[in-house]
């Protein structure tokens, strides 16, 4: 789900949980039995339809082209084994469909802060995504202009974010916001999957960042990525106890890449995977640039009462291995 401002009460879907084996990034999960497994597509390429509803400024073929570009961007990420195929136009609304994957515009005036949203049908035995639908809220002004259009949201940018959800990715917290009357405004972000969109007219979010790429390659790895990349694992603790919902950022000074992950439970454990080998700076921060329910379901008791901190050692990621375990100690605000 991508919001114009912070969504007040919305998650991607009712069953959107954080998968316990989340490496780099936050992946969507579904609870099966007593465990949670990652949502992902097993049948590739993903066949999708485009709803033939036009909106002012964007025709259905223009929407199809923007969506095709967005799928191509994800498919073109390095070390990723993905595929998508346009199956045709349909008169079915993405809000009503539950048999095929449909993307299109729909009127949702009740969601006056939501630009788009993704819903899934999941095999509750295997966790496989069977179909998914994305709607772009037609109450907002849209554009597919190559260079963007002032005052209008860029379809391709929002499609790129929602298709990230469709593929099984959750939200990234790599971004900074400020509180304003009526909600939060994003100051900057370094992930397409940050939950709050840039202002209308911007096309800066048509491009994947290192965090997005790490996430998608962790979910749909090709044959080489496990040999080429490594991971960082460890714990975030406060007064000796694990911290849930802490945002851990791995920064590679040599490349400038930022890839982040979360601690997912009260143990404070985290894993950041799909990292290029080399030395990393680790930084931990509380989840305070968006509402926790943009990232986790209610079962995660997010602790945001601590100060951001750096780990006082460089952490070296080996190829096809895991760094030594690190403990990031934080103190209360």
């Amino acid at each position: 789900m991508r919001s114009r401002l912070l969504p007040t009460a919305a998650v991607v879907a009712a069953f959107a949980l954080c998968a316990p084996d989340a490496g780099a990034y936050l992946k969507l999960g579904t609870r099966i039995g007593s465990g949670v497994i990652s949502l992902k597509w097993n049948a590739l390429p993903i066949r999708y339809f485009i709803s033939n509803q036009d909106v002012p400024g964007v025709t259905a073929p223009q929407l199809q082209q923007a969506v095709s570009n967005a799928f191509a961007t994800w498919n073109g990420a390095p070390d990723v084994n993905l595929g998508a195929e346009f199956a045709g136009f349909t008169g079915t609304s993405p809000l009503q469909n539950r048999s095929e994957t449909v993307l299109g515009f729909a009127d949702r005036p009740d969601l006056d802060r939501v630009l788009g949203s993704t819903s899934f049908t999941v095999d509750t035995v295997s966790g496989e995504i069977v179909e998914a639908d994305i709607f772009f809220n037609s109450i907002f002004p849209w554009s597919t202009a190559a260079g963007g259009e002032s005052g209008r949201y860029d379809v391709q940018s929002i499609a790129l974010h929602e298709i990230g959800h469709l593929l099984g990715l959750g939200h990234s917290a790599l971004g900074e916001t400020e509180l304003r009357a009526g909600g939060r405004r994003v100051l900057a972000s370094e992930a397409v999957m940050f939950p709050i969109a840039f202002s209308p007219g911007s096309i800066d979010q048509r491009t994947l960042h290192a965090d997005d790429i790490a996430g998608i390659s962790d979910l749909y790895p090709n044959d080489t990525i496990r040999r080429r990349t490594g991971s960082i694992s460890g714990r975030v603790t406060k007064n000796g106890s694990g911290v849930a919902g802490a945002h851990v950022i791995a920064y590679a000074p040599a490349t400038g890449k930022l890839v982040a992950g979360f601690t997912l439970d009260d143990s404070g454990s985290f894993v950041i995977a799909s990292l290029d080998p080399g030395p990393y700076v680790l930084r931990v921060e509380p989840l305070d640039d968006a509402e926790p329910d943009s990232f986790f379901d209610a079962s995660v008791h997010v602790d945001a009462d601590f100060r951001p901190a750096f780990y006082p050692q460089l952490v070296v990621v080996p190829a096809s291995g895991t760094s030594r375990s690190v403990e990031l100690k934080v103190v209360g605000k």
Partner: protein
Amino acid sequence: MIARRVLPLLAVFIWSSSAAQAQYTRAELPRPGSMEMGATATWTTGRNGGSASATETSNPTVSSTPLTLFKADSRVKPAVGVAGQIGVYVSRALEVEGAVALSRPVRSVRLTGDFEGAVDTTAEETLTHYLIGGSALYHFGRGRLRPFVLGGASYLRQLDDGAAAVQNGTELHAGGGIKYWFGGGRRHRAGLRLDAKVSSRDRSAALDSTKRATTATMSAGFAVLF
């Protein structure tokens, strides 16, 4: 009166030195085929490892420049190490030498200016550097004190903390030094060795390891000539 006293003493010293020179020359070391082994302690200068910033793409309506999350300034600290050399003289002046060196420089990154106020921190790791290479040394003079110049290349193997990652690279060096040979028999001779060299290496332990880094290394130790 003083000048008269000094003059004979100076003359004696010069005569003695000439005698030692003659004696050393007669010892016939080094000669083509002579071998030299040495062990030295090394000190390598620190160097700036480069600066970088962790940035995020700004919302264009807020700023046209990236938001800096924090800054990172890296440095490789001076390091001591050890080295061993074994050489063979091609002529009385020219020696070809193989060498192995080990040092453990510390790479440090100073983290400052955090956007959300994280306390400034220095993050460090200890590297292990192995240099395996060769040099050509050209010696001047024939006395106990023999200046020399050298140049060569090495294979560099860099292990990160805990040997978690390994990088291989190359090192080129040039410099000079002196050897002082003590007295000895016809079969061997002991001496001291001092040298300084400038080294250019990739896999430089800097933040941007694609660039070659230049350092200076001073060495001091013992040598034995066979």
